[in-house]
Protein backbone atom coordinates (compact mmCIF):
# COMPACT_ATOMS: atom_id res chain seq x y z
CA UNK A 1 0.00 0.00 0.00
CA UNK A 2 0.95 3.58 -0.44
CA UNK A 3 0.97 6.03 2.46
CA UNK A 4 1.61 9.73 2.56
CA UNK A 5 3.11 10.93 5.80
CA UNK A 6 3.28 14.57 6.83
CA UNK A 7 4.37 15.99 10.12
CA UNK A 8 4.74 19.11 12.15
CA UNK A 9 7.29 19.04 14.92
CA UNK A 10 7.64 21.93 17.35
CA UNK A 11 11.25 22.98 16.94
CA UNK A 12 11.44 25.82 19.45
CA UNK A 13 13.62 23.71 21.76
CA UNK A 14 16.75 21.67 21.02
CA UNK A 15 14.72 18.55 21.95
CA UNK A 16 12.17 19.54 19.33
CA UNK A 17 14.88 19.86 16.69
CA UNK A 18 16.16 16.45 17.66
CA UNK A 19 12.68 14.96 17.31
CA UNK A 20 12.37 16.56 13.89
CA UNK A 21 15.59 14.96 12.75
CA UNK A 22 14.56 11.60 14.12
CA UNK A 23 11.16 11.72 12.44
CA UNK A 24 12.80 12.58 9.13
CA UNK A 25 15.31 9.75 9.52
CA UNK A 26 12.62 7.23 10.32
CA UNK A 27 10.63 8.33 7.29
CA UNK A 28 13.70 8.07 5.09
CA UNK A 29 14.07 4.42 6.05
CA UNK A 30 10.63 3.67 4.65
CA UNK A 31 9.98 6.03 1.80
CA UNK A 32 11.02 8.98 -0.27
CA UNK A 33 10.98 12.59 0.72
CA UNK A 34 8.74 14.46 -1.70
CA UNK A 35 8.70 17.80 0.13
CA UNK A 36 10.31 19.08 3.29
CA UNK A 37 8.07 17.36 5.79
CA UNK A 38 6.17 15.14 3.37
CA UNK A 39 7.05 11.56 2.61
CA UNK A 40 5.58 8.93 0.30
CA UNK A 41 6.00 5.31 1.28
CA UNK A 42 5.30 2.05 -0.44
CA UNK A 43 5.03 -0.43 2.39
CA UNK A 44 3.34 -3.68 3.21
CA UNK A 45 1.08 -3.75 6.27
CA UNK A 46 3.82 -5.12 8.52
CA UNK A 47 6.32 -2.52 7.42
CA UNK A 48 3.71 0.15 7.92
CA UNK A 49 3.04 -0.92 11.51
CA UNK A 50 6.75 -0.80 12.17
CA UNK A 51 7.08 2.65 10.66
CA UNK A 52 4.04 4.02 12.46
CA UNK A 53 5.21 2.64 15.76
CA UNK A 54 8.62 4.18 15.31
CA UNK A 55 7.18 7.58 14.44
CA UNK A 56 4.74 7.59 17.32
CA UNK A 57 7.52 6.81 19.74
CA UNK A 58 9.51 9.84 18.59
CA UNK A 59 6.91 12.58 18.56
CA UNK A 60 5.38 14.32 21.56
CA UNK A 61 1.73 14.47 20.82
CA UNK A 62 1.11 17.56 22.96
CA UNK A 63 3.24 19.67 20.65
CA UNK A 64 3.80 17.70 17.42
CA UNK A 65 1.43 16.22 14.92
CA UNK A 66 1.55 13.45 12.36
CA UNK A 67 -0.87 12.90 9.50
CA UNK A 68 -1.14 9.68 7.52
CA UNK A 69 -2.99 9.57 4.20
CA UNK A 70 -3.68 6.06 2.97
CA UNK A 71 -3.56 6.15 -0.80
CA UNK A 72 -4.05 2.43 -1.39
CA UNK A 73 -2.63 0.47 -4.29
CA UNK A 74 -4.04 2.64 -7.06
CA UNK A 75 -2.27 5.73 -5.81
CA UNK A 76 -1.08 6.94 -9.22
CA UNK A 77 -4.54 8.35 -10.01
CA UNK A 78 -4.53 10.30 -6.79
CA UNK A 79 -1.18 12.00 -7.06
CA UNK A 80 -0.27 14.85 -9.34
CA UNK A 81 2.98 16.73 -9.22
CA UNK A 82 3.74 20.20 -10.51
CA UNK A 83 7.00 22.02 -10.36
CA UNK A 84 10.55 21.22 -9.35
CA UNK A 85 11.96 18.13 -7.65
CA UNK A 86 9.81 15.50 -9.30
CA UNK A 87 9.81 12.29 -7.32
CA UNK A 88 10.61 8.85 -8.70
CA UNK A 89 8.01 6.15 -9.12
CA UNK A 90 9.09 3.40 -6.77
CA UNK A 91 7.19 0.86 -8.86
CA UNK A 92 8.45 2.07 -12.22
CA UNK A 93 11.77 1.16 -13.81
CA UNK A 94 14.59 2.37 -11.56
CA UNK A 95 17.60 3.06 -13.71
CA UNK A 96 20.36 5.48 -12.86
Amino acid at each position, binding site marked *: MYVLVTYDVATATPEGQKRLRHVAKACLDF*GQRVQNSVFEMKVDPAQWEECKDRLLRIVQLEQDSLRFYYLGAKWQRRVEHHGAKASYDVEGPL*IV
Partner: protein
Amino acid sequence: MKRHLNTLFITTQGAYLKKEGQAVAVRIERETRLRVPLHNLDAIACFGRVGASPALMGACAEAGVSFSFLTEHGRFIASVNGFTPGNVLLRRAQYRAADDPAISAELTRSIVLGKIANSRTVLLRAAREGADAESAERLKHAAGRLSASIVEVKAADSVDRLRGLEGEAASRYFSVFNDLVLVAGDTFRFKKRSRRPPLDPLNCLLSFLYTLLLLDIRSACEATGLDAAVGYLHRDRPGRPGLALDLMEEFRAPLADRVALTLINRQQLGARDFVRQESGAYLLTDDARKRVLVAWQERKQEETRHPLLDARTSVGLLVHLQARLMARRLRGDLDAYPPLIWK
Protein backbone atom coordinates in the same frame (compact mmCIF):
# COMPACT_ATOMS: atom_id res chain seq x y z
CA MET B 1 3.89 -15.11 -0.54
CA LYS B 2 6.77 -13.29 -2.07
CA ARG B 3 5.90 -10.00 -3.69
CA HIS B 4 7.34 -8.74 -6.89
CA LEU B 5 9.53 -5.81 -6.00
CA ASN B 6 11.58 -3.53 -8.11
CA THR B 7 15.10 -3.90 -9.41
CA LEU B 8 17.45 -0.95 -9.22
CA PHE B 9 19.76 -0.81 -12.23
CA ILE B 10 22.86 1.34 -12.02
CA THR B 11 24.31 2.09 -15.44
CA THR B 12 25.99 5.42 -14.79
CA GLN B 13 29.74 4.92 -14.81
CA GLY B 14 31.46 6.14 -11.66
CA ALA B 15 28.34 5.92 -9.52
CA TYR B 16 28.77 4.91 -5.90
CA LEU B 17 26.14 3.19 -3.81
CA LYS B 18 26.02 3.60 -0.08
CA LYS B 19 23.79 2.65 2.77
CA GLU B 20 21.86 5.45 4.39
CA GLY B 21 19.67 4.20 7.19
CA GLN B 22 17.69 1.36 5.69
CA ALA B 23 17.94 2.76 2.20
CA VAL B 24 20.38 2.72 -0.68
CA ALA B 25 21.64 6.08 -1.86
CA VAL B 26 23.06 6.43 -5.36
CA ARG B 27 25.80 9.02 -5.41
CA ILE B 28 26.98 10.50 -8.66
CA GLU B 29 29.66 13.15 -8.56
CA ARG B 30 29.19 13.56 -4.82
CA GLU B 31 25.52 14.21 -5.16
CA THR B 32 22.77 11.85 -4.10
CA ARG B 33 20.85 11.16 -7.26
CA LEU B 34 18.37 8.65 -5.90
CA ARG B 35 17.51 7.15 -2.56
CA VAL B 36 15.40 4.05 -2.33
CA PRO B 37 14.45 2.14 0.83
CA LEU B 38 15.80 -1.41 0.65
CA HIS B 39 12.41 -2.92 1.44
CA ASN B 40 11.14 -1.66 -1.92
CA LEU B 41 13.79 -3.61 -3.80
CA ASP B 42 14.29 -7.19 -4.89
CA ALA B 43 17.62 -6.69 -6.53
CA ILE B 44 20.34 -4.22 -7.36
CA ALA B 45 22.29 -4.71 -10.56
CA CYS B 46 25.41 -2.66 -11.18
CA PHE B 47 26.73 -2.34 -14.71
CA GLY B 48 30.38 -1.50 -15.22
CA ARG B 49 32.35 0.90 -13.07
CA VAL B 50 30.02 1.17 -10.12
CA GLY B 51 31.16 1.04 -6.52
CA ALA B 52 29.32 0.08 -3.39
CA SER B 53 30.05 0.32 0.29
CA PRO B 54 30.57 -2.88 2.29
CA ALA B 55 27.86 -1.70 4.66
CA LEU B 56 25.39 -1.61 1.80
CA MET B 57 26.38 -5.04 0.53
CA GLY B 58 25.94 -6.41 4.04
CA ALA B 59 22.55 -4.78 4.42
CA CYS B 60 21.44 -6.21 1.06
CA ALA B 61 22.56 -9.69 2.01
CA GLU B 62 20.61 -9.41 5.23
CA ALA B 63 17.50 -7.93 3.67
CA GLY B 64 17.45 -10.55 0.91
CA VAL B 65 18.13 -8.04 -1.85
CA SER B 66 20.25 -9.71 -4.49
CA PHE B 67 23.24 -7.62 -5.36
CA SER B 68 25.20 -8.21 -8.54
CA PHE B 69 28.02 -6.72 -10.50
CA LEU B 70 27.99 -7.04 -14.27
CA THR B 71 30.25 -5.68 -16.96
CA GLU B 72 29.10 -2.57 -18.73
CA HIS B 73 27.63 -4.82 -21.38
CA GLY B 74 25.79 -7.12 -19.06
CA ARG B 75 28.11 -10.07 -18.55
CA PHE B 76 27.81 -11.38 -15.04
CA ILE B 77 30.88 -10.88 -12.83
CA ALA B 78 29.92 -11.44 -9.22
CA SER B 79 27.14 -11.22 -6.75
CA VAL B 80 27.05 -10.68 -3.03
CA ASN B 81 25.32 -13.38 -1.05
CA GLY B 82 24.78 -13.74 2.64
CA PHE B 83 24.53 -17.03 4.43
CA THR B 84 23.17 -19.74 2.19
CA PRO B 85 19.45 -19.47 2.60
CA GLY B 86 16.95 -22.23 2.85
CA ASN B 87 16.99 -25.75 3.83
CA VAL B 88 19.91 -28.13 3.72
CA LEU B 89 17.50 -31.01 3.23
CA LEU B 90 16.23 -29.44 0.04
CA ARG B 91 19.77 -29.07 -1.25
CA ARG B 92 20.59 -32.66 -0.46
CA ALA B 93 17.47 -33.75 -2.29
CA GLN B 94 18.57 -31.64 -5.24
CA TYR B 95 22.02 -33.28 -5.32
CA ARG B 96 20.61 -36.77 -4.92
CA ALA B 97 18.25 -36.14 -7.83
CA ALA B 98 21.23 -35.02 -9.92
CA ASP B 99 22.97 -38.32 -9.16
CA ASP B 100 19.93 -40.37 -10.05
CA PRO B 101 19.70 -40.92 -13.82
CA ALA B 102 15.97 -41.63 -13.76
CA ILE B 103 15.03 -38.48 -11.83
CA SER B 104 17.49 -36.39 -13.82
CA ALA B 105 15.89 -37.61 -17.02
CA GLU B 106 12.41 -36.88 -15.75
CA LEU B 107 13.32 -33.32 -14.73
CA THR B 108 15.21 -32.74 -17.97
CA ARG B 109 12.20 -33.97 -19.91
CA SER B 110 9.92 -31.43 -18.20
CA ILE B 111 12.40 -28.64 -18.80
CA VAL B 112 12.88 -29.48 -22.48
CA LEU B 113 9.14 -29.93 -22.96
CA GLY B 114 8.49 -26.50 -21.50
CA LYS B 115 11.12 -24.93 -23.67
CA ILE B 116 9.91 -26.46 -26.92
CA ALA B 117 6.22 -25.85 -26.19
CA ASN B 118 6.91 -22.20 -25.44
CA SER B 119 9.11 -21.66 -28.50
CA ARG B 120 6.33 -23.18 -30.56
CA THR B 121 3.81 -20.76 -29.05
CA VAL B 122 6.03 -17.83 -29.96
CA LEU B 123 6.23 -19.03 -33.57
CA LEU B 124 2.51 -19.66 -33.87
CA ARG B 125 1.64 -16.34 -32.36
CA ALA B 126 3.88 -14.56 -34.84
CA ALA B 127 2.28 -16.57 -37.66
CA ARG B 128 -1.16 -15.36 -36.56
CA GLU B 129 -0.13 -11.76 -36.08
CA GLY B 130 1.81 -9.60 -38.41
CA ALA B 131 3.74 -12.04 -40.56
CA ASP B 132 3.04 -12.12 -44.28
CA ALA B 133 1.62 -15.26 -45.89
CA GLU B 134 4.98 -16.73 -46.86
CA SER B 135 6.52 -16.17 -43.43
CA ALA B 136 3.42 -17.49 -41.74
CA GLU B 137 3.72 -20.65 -43.77
CA ARG B 138 7.36 -21.14 -42.74
CA LEU B 139 6.54 -20.39 -39.10
CA LYS B 140 3.69 -22.88 -39.08
CA HIS B 141 5.88 -25.48 -40.69
CA ALA B 142 8.58 -24.99 -38.06
CA ALA B 143 5.96 -25.08 -35.32
CA GLY B 144 4.73 -28.37 -36.74
CA ARG B 145 8.21 -29.80 -36.52
CA LEU B 146 8.45 -28.62 -32.92
CA SER B 147 5.21 -30.47 -32.22
CA ALA B 148 6.89 -33.58 -33.56
CA SER B 149 9.86 -32.92 -31.26
CA ILE B 150 7.49 -32.73 -28.32
CA VAL B 151 6.22 -36.20 -29.09
CA GLU B 152 9.80 -37.49 -29.24
CA VAL B 153 10.71 -35.73 -25.99
CA LYS B 154 7.81 -37.39 -24.22
CA ALA B 155 9.17 -40.79 -25.23
CA ALA B 156 12.85 -40.08 -24.51
CA ASP B 157 14.22 -41.55 -21.33
CA SER B 158 17.86 -40.53 -21.14
CA VAL B 159 19.32 -37.14 -20.40
CA ASP B 160 21.68 -37.39 -23.38
CA ARG B 161 18.86 -38.12 -25.80
CA LEU B 162 16.90 -35.20 -24.36
CA ARG B 163 19.87 -32.90 -24.75
CA GLY B 164 20.04 -33.91 -28.40
CA LEU B 165 16.36 -33.23 -28.95
CA GLU B 166 16.65 -29.90 -27.19
CA GLY B 167 19.50 -28.84 -29.45
CA GLU B 168 17.59 -29.91 -32.55
CA ALA B 169 14.49 -28.03 -31.48
CA ALA B 170 16.52 -24.92 -30.71
CA SER B 171 18.06 -24.89 -34.16
CA ARG B 172 14.64 -25.39 -35.76
CA TYR B 173 13.32 -22.49 -33.76
CA PHE B 174 16.20 -20.22 -34.70
CA SER B 175 16.05 -21.30 -38.34
CA VAL B 176 12.83 -19.29 -38.74
CA PHE B 177 13.85 -16.49 -36.39
CA ASN B 178 14.10 -14.09 -39.32
CA ASP B 179 10.40 -14.49 -39.96
CA LEU B 180 9.76 -13.04 -36.52
CA VAL B 181 11.61 -9.84 -37.37
CA LEU B 182 9.17 -7.60 -39.17
CA VAL B 183 11.35 -4.62 -39.99
CA ALA B 184 13.07 -4.22 -43.34
CA GLY B 185 16.83 -3.97 -43.70
CA ASP B 186 19.78 -6.03 -42.67
CA THR B 187 20.40 -4.71 -39.17
CA PHE B 188 18.45 -7.42 -37.45
CA ARG B 189 18.96 -10.21 -39.95
CA PHE B 190 19.57 -13.36 -37.98
CA LYS B 191 22.25 -15.68 -39.29
CA LYS B 192 23.01 -17.89 -36.38
CA ARG B 193 23.15 -17.65 -32.64
CA SER B 194 26.54 -16.27 -31.59
CA ARG B 195 27.67 -15.30 -28.14
CA ARG B 196 30.90 -14.39 -26.41
CA PRO B 197 31.02 -12.23 -28.36
CA PRO B 198 27.69 -11.65 -30.11
CA LEU B 199 28.53 -10.98 -33.74
CA ASP B 200 25.46 -9.00 -34.78
CA PRO B 201 22.98 -6.62 -33.15
CA LEU B 202 20.26 -9.22 -32.74
CA ASN B 203 22.54 -11.64 -30.93
CA CYS B 204 23.83 -8.79 -28.82
CA LEU B 205 20.30 -7.90 -27.76
CA LEU B 206 19.37 -11.51 -27.06
CA SER B 207 22.49 -12.09 -24.99
CA PHE B 208 21.81 -9.00 -22.92
CA LEU B 209 18.23 -10.04 -22.20
CA TYR B 210 19.28 -13.60 -21.40
CA THR B 211 21.71 -12.20 -18.83
CA LEU B 212 18.93 -10.20 -17.20
CA LEU B 213 16.70 -13.26 -17.17
CA LEU B 214 19.46 -15.41 -15.72
CA LEU B 215 20.07 -12.90 -12.93
CA ASP B 216 16.43 -13.10 -11.91
CA ILE B 217 16.33 -16.88 -12.06
CA ARG B 218 19.54 -17.20 -10.11
CA SER B 219 18.05 -15.02 -7.39
CA ALA B 220 14.85 -17.06 -7.48
CA CYS B 221 16.86 -20.28 -6.94
CA GLU B 222 18.79 -18.74 -4.07
CA ALA B 223 15.64 -17.32 -2.49
CA THR B 224 13.94 -20.69 -2.69
CA GLY B 225 16.90 -22.40 -1.05
CA LEU B 226 18.00 -24.29 -4.15
CA ASP B 227 21.59 -24.47 -5.28
CA ALA B 228 21.72 -22.56 -8.55
CA ALA B 229 24.83 -24.48 -9.62
CA VAL B 230 23.53 -28.05 -9.80
CA GLY B 231 21.30 -28.64 -12.78
CA TYR B 232 19.86 -31.51 -14.76
CA LEU B 233 19.76 -30.50 -18.40
CA HIS B 234 22.94 -28.49 -17.94
CA ARG B 235 25.91 -30.48 -16.74
CA ASP B 236 27.90 -29.31 -13.75
CA ARG B 237 30.76 -27.07 -14.69
CA PRO B 238 32.68 -24.75 -12.40
CA GLY B 239 31.10 -21.34 -12.37
CA ARG B 240 28.07 -22.41 -14.36
CA PRO B 241 24.69 -21.95 -12.74
CA GLY B 242 23.26 -25.21 -14.07
CA LEU B 243 19.89 -25.17 -12.33
CA ALA B 244 19.33 -21.51 -13.12
CA LEU B 245 20.05 -22.28 -16.79
CA ASP B 246 17.64 -25.22 -16.62
CA LEU B 247 14.82 -23.12 -15.23
CA MET B 248 15.60 -20.43 -17.75
CA GLU B 249 14.77 -22.62 -20.74
CA GLU B 250 11.01 -22.29 -20.47
CA PHE B 251 11.33 -18.49 -20.23
CA ARG B 252 13.77 -17.73 -23.03
CA ALA B 253 11.43 -17.55 -26.00
CA PRO B 254 8.25 -16.17 -24.42
CA LEU B 255 9.97 -13.65 -22.18
CA ALA B 256 13.40 -12.60 -23.44
CA ASP B 257 12.92 -13.24 -27.17
CA ARG B 258 9.51 -11.58 -27.17
CA VAL B 259 10.89 -8.45 -25.49
CA ALA B 260 13.70 -8.32 -28.06
CA LEU B 261 11.29 -8.76 -30.96
CA THR B 262 8.88 -6.16 -29.64
CA LEU B 263 11.68 -3.61 -29.31
CA ILE B 264 12.81 -4.34 -32.85
CA ASN B 265 9.40 -4.55 -34.49
CA ARG B 266 8.18 -1.35 -32.88
CA GLN B 267 11.44 0.20 -34.07
CA GLN B 268 12.38 1.25 -30.57
CA LEU B 269 15.84 0.00 -31.44
CA GLY B 270 17.69 0.52 -34.68
CA ALA B 271 21.11 0.21 -36.27
CA ARG B 272 22.39 3.35 -34.52
CA ASP B 273 21.83 1.76 -31.11
CA PHE B 274 24.65 -0.72 -31.59
CA VAL B 275 28.38 -0.24 -31.80
CA ARG B 276 30.63 -2.66 -33.62
CA GLN B 277 33.97 -3.20 -31.96
CA GLU B 278 37.17 -4.10 -33.73
CA SER B 279 36.86 -7.67 -32.54
CA GLY B 280 33.59 -7.92 -34.45
CA ALA B 281 31.54 -7.92 -31.28
CA TYR B 282 28.44 -5.76 -31.15
CA LEU B 283 27.55 -3.72 -28.09
CA LEU B 284 24.49 -1.76 -27.08
CA THR B 285 25.02 1.96 -26.59
CA ASP B 286 24.41 3.38 -23.12
CA ASP B 287 21.18 5.00 -24.12
CA ALA B 288 19.85 1.90 -25.88
CA ARG B 289 20.75 -0.27 -22.92
CA LYS B 290 18.58 1.90 -20.73
CA ARG B 291 15.68 1.51 -23.13
CA VAL B 292 16.09 -2.25 -23.06
CA LEU B 293 16.11 -2.20 -19.25
CA VAL B 294 12.94 -0.12 -19.18
CA ALA B 295 11.20 -2.51 -21.59
CA TRP B 296 12.38 -5.48 -19.54
CA GLN B 297 11.23 -3.96 -16.27
CA GLU B 298 7.86 -3.01 -17.67
CA ARG B 299 7.32 -6.47 -19.04
CA LYS B 300 8.11 -7.95 -15.64
CA GLN B 301 5.58 -5.71 -13.98
CA GLU B 302 2.72 -6.78 -16.21
CA GLU B 303 0.02 -8.70 -14.45
CA THR B 304 -0.59 -12.26 -15.41
CA ARG B 305 -1.99 -15.48 -14.15
CA HIS B 306 -0.01 -18.59 -13.32
CA PRO B 307 -1.94 -21.22 -15.28
CA LEU B 308 -1.19 -24.11 -12.97
CA LEU B 309 -1.35 -22.42 -9.59
CA ASP B 310 -4.24 -20.29 -10.84
CA ALA B 311 -2.88 -17.29 -8.98
CA ARG B 312 -2.72 -13.68 -10.04
CA THR B 313 0.87 -12.57 -10.20
CA SER B 314 3.30 -10.42 -12.11
CA VAL B 315 5.41 -11.74 -14.97
CA GLY B 316 8.51 -11.05 -12.88
CA LEU B 317 7.36 -13.36 -10.13
CA LEU B 318 6.80 -16.32 -12.43
CA VAL B 319 10.46 -17.32 -12.10
CA HIS B 320 10.05 -17.49 -8.33
CA LEU B 321 6.92 -19.58 -8.63
CA GLN B 322 8.68 -22.00 -10.96
CA ALA B 323 11.67 -22.27 -8.63
CA ARG B 324 9.26 -23.18 -5.83
CA LEU B 325 7.56 -25.79 -7.95
CA MET B 326 11.00 -27.27 -8.64
CA ALA B 327 11.67 -27.31 -4.90
CA ARG B 328 8.38 -29.04 -4.29
CA ARG B 329 9.22 -31.71 -6.87
CA LEU B 330 12.65 -32.26 -5.32
CA ARG B 331 11.14 -32.56 -1.86
CA GLY B 332 8.74 -35.15 -3.22
CA ASP B 333 5.60 -33.06 -2.74
CA LEU B 334 4.91 -33.21 -6.46
CA ASP B 335 5.26 -36.20 -8.79
CA ALA B 336 6.77 -34.16 -11.58
CA TYR B 337 8.10 -30.71 -12.25
CA PRO B 338 5.42 -28.78 -14.14
CA PRO B 339 7.08 -26.32 -16.54
CA LEU B 340 5.30 -23.05 -17.18
CA ILE B 341 3.43 -23.30 -20.47
CA TRP B 342 2.71 -19.84 -21.88
CA LYS B 343 -0.47 -19.29 -23.77
